């Protein structure tokens, strides 16, 4: 049925016109566009599925989603991490019902097919009596993700065997991620379980917000929180930082330390807590001169790496009009428990479902979906033209830059979205979503 009503790929791709600074609102609500995203983006890209700290021992597992597909992330008896579709090869029921745990095997609750922690099928009831010993168990293991790799503890997986390596996929985004992930030898750990909550909005509204939108925090959306926390003088200058898109579809916005104390939070935090960081990351990144406020790893992993409140979040698609937000604290594994505790408490006070800042976001995104349901509204265009044509470079920072208050990263995000829709072969994908050449 859906197949007969597929949207033409070229038609879908025309819905984003980043170089004209506009995106059509159908991308936030059209079921056919959503189906295309599941196939062309979520079934191909590297997706965050967990952190090694969540599954330290053999048999440890967590369950999560890749796109709308439920998956199990498990450490097998040899210590290898596998990612499997949580979908019994017998009748397709979810095999594991738990958020996490430790197990020797996964038994489907429907007919009792049993899988090892490496996803292979170990037991089928009536193997001898009713299958006559002829069932090919080796061919009936849980479906594996095509590739599983970790970057500094963060586990990613992709269904696409032809996808580039994770390091190539992240490109220069890793240079920025390392400010939080590689500033100490012990690396990071998640603080979980995640907060999970449902927002009646398209997943891209969150991903776009975190990659590019400092504007909303400085005007009205978070004014109630910032006024309550900081008084009326809460606005930073547009020159207090930049946004960067260092690799296709990925980006972040950041303060750069200057005389304004608001830009120096990471200087204070890293001086106090990670004094060895300059040896690992150099002066610029190791002393907190860059404060990565928020960013997105394409398509749907976002983060706040602001000092003292770092967190990761996934925008889990649930149809075009709904997403689940899953968010974890992420802390430096080697820091004292007192500091980790303070970081987590500060994060949850500011962000997450109860955070005084984040509690103002979900409703904005919901109302984008709500206002775009009608025939007229859904065919209108949203404006992402702030700073269009004003992108620039800085020899110190990888990627194309925009002002802290701009939408250059949103444009880069949608260029990647469009390119993935249009291009079958990773080799044919543009190597960059930048418009200003590297000098």
């Amino acid at each position, binding site marked *: 049925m859906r197949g007969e009503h597929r949207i033409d790929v070229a038609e879908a791709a025309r819905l984003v016109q980043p170089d004209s600074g506009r995106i059509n609102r159908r991308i936030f609500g059209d079921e056919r566009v959503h189906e295309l995203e599941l196939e062309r983006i979520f079934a191909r890209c590297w997706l965050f599925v967990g952190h090694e700290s969540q599954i330290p*021992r053999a048999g440890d597992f967590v369950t999560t989603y890749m796109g709308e597909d439920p998956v199990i992330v498990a450490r097998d008896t040899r210590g290898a991490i596998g990612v499997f579709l949580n979908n019994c090869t017998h009748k397709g029921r979810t095999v594991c019902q738990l958020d996490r745990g430790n197990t020797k095997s996964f038994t489907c609750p429907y007919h009792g097919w049993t899988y090892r922690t490496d996803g292979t099928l170990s037991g089928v009831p009536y193997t001898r009596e009713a299958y006559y010993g002829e069932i090919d168990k080796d061919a009936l293991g849980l479906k594996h993700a095509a590739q599983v790799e970790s970057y500094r503890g963060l586990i990613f997986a992709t269904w696409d065997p032809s996808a580039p390596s994770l390091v190539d996929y992240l490109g220069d985004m890793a240079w920025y991620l390392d400010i939080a992930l590689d500033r100490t030898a012990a690396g990071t750990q998640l603080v979980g379980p995640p907060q999970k909550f449902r927002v009646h909005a398209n997943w891209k509204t969150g991903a776009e917000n975190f990659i590019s939108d400092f504007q909303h925090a400085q005007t009205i959306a978070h004014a*109630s929180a910032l006024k309550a926390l900081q008084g009326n003088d809460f606005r930073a200058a547009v020159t207090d930082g930049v946004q960067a898109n260092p690799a296709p579809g990925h980006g972040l916005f950041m303060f750069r330390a200057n005389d304004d104390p608001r830009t120096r939070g990471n200087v204070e935090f890293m001086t106090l807590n990670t004094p060895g960081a300059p040896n690992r990351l150099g002066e610029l990144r190791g002393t907190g001169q860059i404060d990565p406020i928020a960013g997105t790893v394409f398509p749907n992993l976002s983060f706040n790496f602001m000092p003292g409140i770092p967190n990761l979040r996934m925008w889990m698609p649930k149809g075009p009009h709904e997403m689940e937000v899953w968010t974890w604290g992420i*802390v430096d594994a080697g820091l004292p428990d007192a500091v980790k505790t303070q970081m987590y408490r500060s994060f949850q006070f500011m962000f997450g479902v109860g955070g*005084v800042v*984040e509690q103002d976001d979900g409703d904005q995104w919901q109302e984008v979906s709500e206002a775009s349901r009608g025939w007229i509204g859904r065919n209108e265009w949203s404006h992402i033209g702030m700073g269009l044509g004003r992108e620039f470079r800085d020899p110190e920072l990888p990627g194309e830059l925009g002002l802290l208050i701009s939408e250059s990263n949103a444009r880069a995000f949608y260029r990647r979205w469009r390119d993935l829709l249009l291009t079958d072969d990773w080799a044919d994908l543009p190597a960059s979503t930048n418009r200003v050449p590297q000098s």
Partner: protein
Amino acid sequence: MSRDVAQELTQLLYREAELLDGGRYEEWLALLAEDVRYVAPIQQDLDPYAEAPGANEPTGVRHEITYLYESFGSLSLRVAKIRTGLQQMENPPSRTVRLIGNVQVEPAADGADRAVRSAFLLYRQRRQRDVEILAGHRSDRWSCAAGGWRLREREIRFAANVLPTKSLSLFY
């Protein structure tokens, strides 16, 4: 346990619900002790028959991982945030109905305090069609001070795994 005290505290929970449904947040704050501990732990689906369910959780943070971990100061800041008039979720204000039930009052370990357990259903309606329903249990400790009963501790356990709300911006 005096029947009068049990009835008094039950009535107080109803009164509290009325204050919150009415957006009378300053009056609600006046019911809290200055050292109030107000937390909402995250619910998970774990194997209840495992030897140590949850044992593989990354450690390092003291106490349980929560949606809310509040003090009198942080709750007061949340009220101040609403009173800026700019809080998205409360302008226009939510219309809420809190149903409080299954109230049980027992002596707390600490002398004159009372342990009060209750269940709640919280219906929230915003604008024309924005509806959310949260359900859960609360475990409280109330102390009797000069000015009457004050809430010293509240632990809120929502029934949901994925919270069916975009924001825990009310009080529970």
